[in-house]
């Protein structure tokens, strides 16, 4: 059952990922990315990360991607222009990608012990309480620094996006 669910969600994620790369319209790509994020949220649930799954939905799919779609709609971004590519990119690109993935899969298979399987419900530290405790004790300093980072990002976004004063 676990394996079937994994294959289902992984299949969705990979198909949406391929769609992201192949579609020439940014809105299609953005929606494919939302699909990847949804599938990944479900995989996080399977791995016992309830809080991260919810955060993935709220922050990534619910806020960041809506912002992307908003900007795409605002700029009325059209289809990408087809550009002639170099010959070797057209012929060697896909095989190289496959070779890259195969090499990574091979290394992963060789390094990892075969017994390292993941069972649903075995991992219980992913609850909001456990994460919150860890976040506000061990990782308090990085957390505070992140808030400064966000402040900088807010100021930067406002400065960049404000109207030019002549």
């Amino acid at each position: 059952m676990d394996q079937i669910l994994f294959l289902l969600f992984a299949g969705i994620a990979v198909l949406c990922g391929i769609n992201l790369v192949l579609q020439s319209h940014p809105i299609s790509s953005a929606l494919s990315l939302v699909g990847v994020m949804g599938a990944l949220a479900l995989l996080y649930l399977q791995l016992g990360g309830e809080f991260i799954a919810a955060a993935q939905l709220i922050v990534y799919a619910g806020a960041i991607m809506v912002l992307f779609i908003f900007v795409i709609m605002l700029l009325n971004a059209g289809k990408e222009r087809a550009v002639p590519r170099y010959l070797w990119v057209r012929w060697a690109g896909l095989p190289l990608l496959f070779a890259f993935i195969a090499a990574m899969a091979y290394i992963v298979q060789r390094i990892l012990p075969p017994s390292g399987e993941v069972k649903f419900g075995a991992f219980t530290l992913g609850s909001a309480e456990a994460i919150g405790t860890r976040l506000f004790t061990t990782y308090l300093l990085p957390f505070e620094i992140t808030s400064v980072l966000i402040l900088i990002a807010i100021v930067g976004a406002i400065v960049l996006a404000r109207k030019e004063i002549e």
Partner: protein
Amino acid sequence: MSIPLVIGVPLSWYLILSAILFTLGVAGFLFRRNIITVFMSIELMLNAVNLTFIAFANKLGQNDGHIFSFFVMVVAAAEAAVGLAIILTIFKNRQTLEIDEVSTLKN
């Protein structure tokens, strides 16, 4: 490659999925011309890395991985805000989103 007959999912499957997604992100980053799509490919790569974090957190029985991926999400949010503001400014100045046409520093 023999798949052991267990009920759970082998950890390596998650890592391979992460590798595939990361590679797709790299491919999108290299091949797409639209700035927004390139940006989204970066987000895909970040997501792939997050999956690795969560999978290893499960394997090691610690939730540090969850916290790291939480930080990745927060940083991605900040990055999206600034990045999209930059894209808006570029579009305002050049009226294009093609990344090849934004190759000069002066307008």
